[in-house]
């Protein structure tokens, strides 16, 4: 069911919020044992919330804009009184002491928080294989990964376990799994959505995003969770548009940037579909303009240095005293820290080591400072491009979903899975992945639109039109 169908059913009285919630709980009970998208289902809470919405309706009170819509939340988003583990043994027993702004905004609009979804440990990964609570299976092919790090959220939406879910995106963690699973994934521009109550990975790149069955549903949720938050000084003061009201009749007058050489070295099926998407946009009235973003190819190495450096600092708090697992057999303070922090998984430890090494005084200038400077130049490249065009079209990822276990021996190839998406985080841009066809194995292909900061309506509109022709 789409969000609009759920709201219509509840407001017209053909279904109650409780019936809707129980329907999705049954879907989860049926499918989750095979897919492993949810790490916890808040069954009793969700039913209680749904009953409260039905009671509100019975009293004749005005319902919120997401009344009765079940939402899954990634396991790094806080909801008071519920566990938030980042799918890490480090936070195995952590219970949120307060509620994140995004969840608070959803609850204010009468959404039903149905459970927390699986993810790569501390959001570090692009295949959901680093989760301490087991790999997630892609509903399109159970032998394949769902992408990551918001793989649980993407798989849950794709399997119809929930109509919408929240994820977070530091290098493509909403858009890449959306592309792999065949759903819509939106990452707003930096500062559009509050991160208060979202467990930090890399603060200059982390953003909350939305995974949904279609662009309209994603837009409706974006409207609710976007906006300035006094609790997050990085959130931007700017009015939040009614995104669906910005959907136009066609794309006449819209300038779509096509980056020079952007299809070089891609999987042939992805290349073909992205070219087809460009042709369809032209048929819808858009003007295609070649743009040059020469330094974008350096986004991935910049991303891995900057985000790992920030992670080494952000994850310093997990020392067994302030947060996290407490070692039982330590001898002295140094030993206590070292043994407690050894609880991190292999990938998280590696990122901390990369970041720590890049920040040592010997490596600081050639690694960290260099990456920051190259990032500035990449941002300038994108700024220039957006003086010529409204949105930029790219593939979401260089491949479709790969087999579980594949690429584990070569982590650099896993890092390249973020190649098309981490540009958006390095540039602070708004981005959306929309399903557009399948490859020869029947695996979903996503294409991506980038837009300037605080202009999410442009990418949502372009994606809305492409989605219509794809269907």
């Amino acid at each position: 069911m789409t969000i609009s169908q759920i709201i219509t059913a509840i407001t017209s009285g053909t279904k109650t919020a409780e019936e809707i919630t129980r329907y999705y709980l049954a879907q989860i009970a049926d499918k989750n044992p095979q897919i492993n998208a949810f790490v916890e289902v808040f069954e009793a809470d969700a039913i209680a919330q749904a009953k409260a919405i039905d009671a509100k309706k019975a009293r004749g009170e005005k319902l919120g804009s997401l009344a009765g819509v079940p939402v899954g939340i990634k396991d790094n988003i806080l909801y008071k009184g519920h566990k938030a583990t980042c799918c890490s043994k480090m936070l195995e027993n952590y219970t949120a002491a307060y509620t994140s702004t995004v969840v608070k905004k959803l609850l204010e609009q009468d959404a039903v928080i149905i459970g927390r979804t699986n993810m790569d440990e501390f959001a570090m990964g692009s295949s959901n294989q680093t989760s301490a609570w087991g790999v997630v299976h892609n509903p399109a092919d159970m032998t394949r990964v769902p992408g990551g790090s918001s793989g649980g959220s993407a798989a849950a939406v794709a399997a119809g376990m929930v109509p919408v879910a929240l994820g977070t995106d530091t290098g493509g963690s909403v858009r890449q799994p959306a592309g792999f699973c065949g759903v819509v994934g939106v990452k707003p521009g930096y500062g559009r959505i509050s991160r208060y109550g979202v467990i930090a990975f890399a603060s200059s790149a982390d953003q909350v995003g939305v995974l949904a069955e279609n662009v309209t549903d994603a837009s409706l949720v974006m409207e609710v969770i976007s906006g300035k938050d006094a609790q997050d000084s990085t959130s931007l003061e700017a009015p939040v548009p009614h995104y669906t009201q910005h959907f136009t009749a066609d794309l006449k007058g819209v300038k779509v940037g096509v980056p020079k050489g952007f299809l070089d070295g891609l999987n042939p099926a992805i290349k073909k579909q992205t070219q087809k998407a460009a042709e369809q946009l032209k048929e819808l009235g858009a003007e295609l303009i070649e743009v040059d973003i020469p330094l974008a190819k350096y986004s991935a190495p910049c991303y891995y240095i900057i985000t790992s450096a920030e992670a080494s600092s952000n994850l310093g708090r997990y020392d067994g005293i302030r947060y996290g697992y407490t070692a039982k057999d330590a001898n002295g303070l140094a030993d206590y820290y070292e043994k407690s922090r050894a609880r991190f998984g292999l990938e998280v430890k590696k990122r901390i080591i990369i970041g720590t090494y890049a920040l040592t005084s010997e490596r600081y200038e050639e690694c960290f400072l260099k990456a920051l400077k190259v990032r500035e130049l990449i941002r300038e490249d994108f700024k220039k491009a957006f003086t010529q065009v409204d949105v930029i079209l790219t593939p979401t990822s260089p491949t479709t979903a790969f087999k579980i276990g594949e690429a584990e021996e070569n982590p650099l190839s896993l890092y390249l899975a973020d190649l098309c998406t981490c540009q958006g985080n390095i540039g602070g841009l708004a981005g959306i992945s929309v399903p557009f066809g399948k490859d020869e194995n029947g695996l979903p292909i996503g294409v991506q639109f980038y837009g300037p900061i605080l202009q999410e309506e442009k990418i949502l509109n372009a994606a809305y039109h492409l989605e219509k022709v794809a269907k």
Partner: protein
Amino acid sequence: MITKQDVELAGKLAKMTVSEQEAAIYEEQLRALFGWVKELSAVNTDNVQLSNATLAAHVRKDQAVTDEQAAANLRAMFAEQLAGQAKVKKVL
């Protein structure tokens, strides 16, 4: 070229136990990653100003800074000392 000692030092600075087996895996993987990162040196960044100039103040020191005099001054404030440690009032 990244060595096992670099990995162990980074683990020590991060206050995190890294096993022999992990160090061996990381050494190889970090060598590949930092080889890739070297591609950034092809970009001319001579005149680039960072948006946040204060970042330069956050360089992490490779080793803990020890100031013996400051420690001695602190100890001198306590009536009882033993083996370079100051005795404080029992609280538990």
